[in-house]
């Protein structure tokens, strides 16, 4: 998996950190996405894809 997170597009809704806290976090100051693991194990793929889908601002992508 290759996950990309665009902090400029991010609006800090927190859907990614809520869905896969092992992979996504939010910064203390701005609440924008912090990518903890850009290449997580395959077992997390379903959850990561769900987080990408739920992101309201289109800040996440996975390939």
């Amino acid at each position, binding site marked *: 998996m290759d996950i990309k997170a665009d902090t400029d597009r991010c*609006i*800090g*809704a*927190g859907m990614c*950190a*809520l*869905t896969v*806290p092992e992979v996504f*976090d*939010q*910064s*203390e*100051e*701005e*609440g*924008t996405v912090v990518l903890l693991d850009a290449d997580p194990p395959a077992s997390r793929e379903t959850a990561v894809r*769900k987080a990408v*889908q*739920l992101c*309201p*601002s*289109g800040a996440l992508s996975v390939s």
Partner: protein
Amino acid sequence: MTEAPSRPVTFPTARRHLFDPPGEVLQWQRQGALHRMTFADGHLGWLLTGHAAARAVLADNRFSNRTELTHPPVAHPLAGQENRQLPPGFFLRTDQPEHTRFRRLLTGQFTVRRMRQLEPRIEEITSDHLDAMERGDRPADLVQAFALPIPSLVICELLGVPYGDRAQFQRDSAALLNLDSSAERMGAALVDLMAYMRDLVLRKRAEPADDLLGGLVASGELDDEELTGVALLLLIAGHETTANMLALGTFALLRDPAQLALLRDDPAVVDNAVEELLRYLTIIHMGPVRTALEDVELDGHLIRAGESVAFSLPAANRDPERFDDPDTLDVTRPATGHLSFGHGIHQCLGQQLARTEMRIAYPALLRRFPGLRLAVPAEEVPMRSHMTIYGVHRLPVTW
């Protein structure tokens, strides 16, 4: 097969059953996602009823949320005056990049982690209100005893608004969201709320405070007018929304004892049950609205620049293309992906706070009062049909 509406529709508001969207929107939805709609001011725009199309438009920056560009889907007492009266910091109704400037100052305060840190205090507040309810008279009004005070106290503590002033701002906030308010009453409520908030901002400037408003004042990023608008938006959003979800959700569960028992007895169901109640009830039932800034093709239609699009989120969340058996309340279904918090850059800033409050409050209520039941026939519960946010005015319960 019903016919697609051949003439422009008007925004349907009358819910025929307690928890269901108006029947017409679900019939129209079967014909397509987009319908011509006449707005309250005569503007000919569009009504959006489909989930995928609603999601697409809400995330599309070719559509604006600015008050002065959007037309009202239903008659609004402050129509034509609103854009003059809303303070500049009411950033819900701004576009990028102005929106981003406000939102970025706030998102750090509403992260998933911050909300987890609030859990012990929300549990304590919930428990205190359940204690008081238990000691009080039966029947009780669940709105006044439980659903309104818990989120109201939580948002007051978070923002740094004195809870002792609640009688005033709860009354004004309710008047502001009541579409049956006279223009004078609604205008006066807005003026009062803004004066109250401006006074609070000035006090925080004089005496620095360790709360969200105090922090915003200290940041030096916003002027007093902007701070007033931000504070007003957060206070209204913070207690009108969760309060209505808690009361209406409890009502829906009391009408469906099997679902209630699942939520009460199985902690593993709680998170998902909250999402399903958000989806099934969709209390934001008269908006949002966006206006096309350029011509946009959608679902085989051409939305022209300047045309407004009104969303029926209750219909979008009952779209069978997105949710199987959508009219059934099923707390075990995968319900995420609903549009109850919106979508796109304006998606609810406080959604993780709302989730945290609901995840704590519903099970705590149901476990404290296993015999909780309505104290009046369901049809006598006064519904908030003509309010910006749906719910119940009162919910008489006993146990």
